[in-house]
């Protein structure tokens, strides 16, 4: 009887076909956008090959944007409806978004080294991107610090909503604070922006597929995997509790 229940709740769920298809599609998509960015797009004559990091750097930020956006949405719906599924989505959004934000931050630092001649500079946008990473690291720490699951979901939904401020700040800070050296790709760069390049049609053609992939397929696929992990975790926790309770 109990045996059967365990299997029903956990092992029973093999990967849905759609998820498997999405995983393959995302992997292939990632590989092909990489090829597009590395070999098809032209070399920037001013910056050299390193400019190709752009095809990961900027899409990674927008991937994080999608994931953190899902956290806000998940938090709001959880608070409104109380369905645990949305809290799992919120948590998945934080983990996936944090990984993407780290990719964004580190590729930025690596790009900055040859172009700005430094790994890091306390530029408003760089600072706010780092703060964004720390905010979501704080989310994970806070989450681990709350034992009661019900309370944890409630409180973290609220924090997930507030944490999104750091994402918006990073996105808009170069429009608010003009003394940044980080270039703006769409629209006019600030006057002292350094290391900007021309978004020629070639750049746009290589960027768009990558941007679309990171905005949709990559975060959705990874978050789905994380969601399933959360589901398993909850089932095992419940079993443990039952076992301890007798």
């Amino acid at each position, binding site marked *: 009887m109990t045996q059967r229940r365990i299997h029903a709740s956990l092992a029973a769920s093999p990967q849905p076909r759609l998820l498997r298809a999405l995983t393959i599609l995302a992997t292939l998509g990632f590989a092909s956008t990489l090829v597009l960015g590395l070999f098809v797009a032209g070399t920037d004559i001013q910056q050299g090959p390193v400019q190709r990091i752009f095809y990961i750097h900027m899409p990674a930020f927008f991937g994080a944007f999608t994931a953190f956006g899902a956290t806000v949405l998940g938090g709001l719906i959880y608070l409104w409806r109380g369905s645990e599924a949305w809290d799992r989505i919120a948590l998945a959004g934080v983990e996936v978004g944090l990984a993407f934000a780290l990719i964004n931050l580190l590729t930025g630092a690596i790009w900055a080294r040859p172009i700005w001649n430094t790994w890091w500079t306390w530029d408003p946008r760089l600072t706010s991107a780092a703060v964004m990473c720390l905010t979501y690291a*704080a989310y994970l*720490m*806070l989450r681990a*610090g709350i034992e009661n699951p019900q309370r944890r979901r409630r*409180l973290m939904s*609220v924090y997930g909503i*507030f944490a999104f401020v750091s994402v918006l*700040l990073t996105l808009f800070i170069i429009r608010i604070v003009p003394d940044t050296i980080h270039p703006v790709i769409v629209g006019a760069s600030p006057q002292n922006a350094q290391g900007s390049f021309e978004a020629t049609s070639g750049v746009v053609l290589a960027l768009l597929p990558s941007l679309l992939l990171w905005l949709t397929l990559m975060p959705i696929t990874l978050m789905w995997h994380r969601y399933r992990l959360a589901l398993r975790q909850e089932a095992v926790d419940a079993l443990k509790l039952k076992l301890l309770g007798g």
Partner: protein
Amino acid sequence: MKSPFAAAVRAIVSKDLRAEWRSRELVSAMALFALLSVLVFSFALELDKNAREEAISGVLWVSLIFASLLGFNRSLSLEHDQGSLDALLLTPVSRSAIFLGKLLGNFMFTLLVALVLLPLMTALYGVQLLDSWALLTTIVGVFGFSAIGTLLATLAVQTRSREALLPIALLPVCLPFLLTAVRATKGIVSGAPQSEWQVWLQLLAAITIIYLVLCLLLYRFVLEE
């Protein structure tokens, strides 16, 4: 001031003020801490005449936020430990009223610290912080981060390592206040024309309003049920 909402807010505020008046623990600790951090900053940054004008508003706001962390933590962990919020929750009081009550208490304490800090820094560093615009910026900014601080402190006291987690949760989220308030204060202190710093004050006010609305809407989810 006859509606049950206003009565509840007033009751909570006056309870906090009375408790503070009796002990005078919190505000004096906050003020002392703020003062110490100002002094530490001036040693660490070796603030000479020119550096002062640049750095003074940053020092002011960072000290204020650090000091307020002390206050928020203490104000809500007391409630939590004494179970007085639980008692309040049993009464048919609106959650927003509880939030506003706690917020006003925290706001007044932090503002008091700011009011000590402003003339003192004016005297110590010879910069003109006693300006009606600087005062307005201080009031708006302190109100704004008191709102988010009250909410996050309520959240943090429910975690395992409460005091440790409030700064981690609060500092990144109150960065927009720091950014705009520091720029506005810097503009005012350096005597720049109003058109240059006005936009920062407006941004600060807008952020405060957005945070206040969000906090009012979300506070009931942060309270224990």
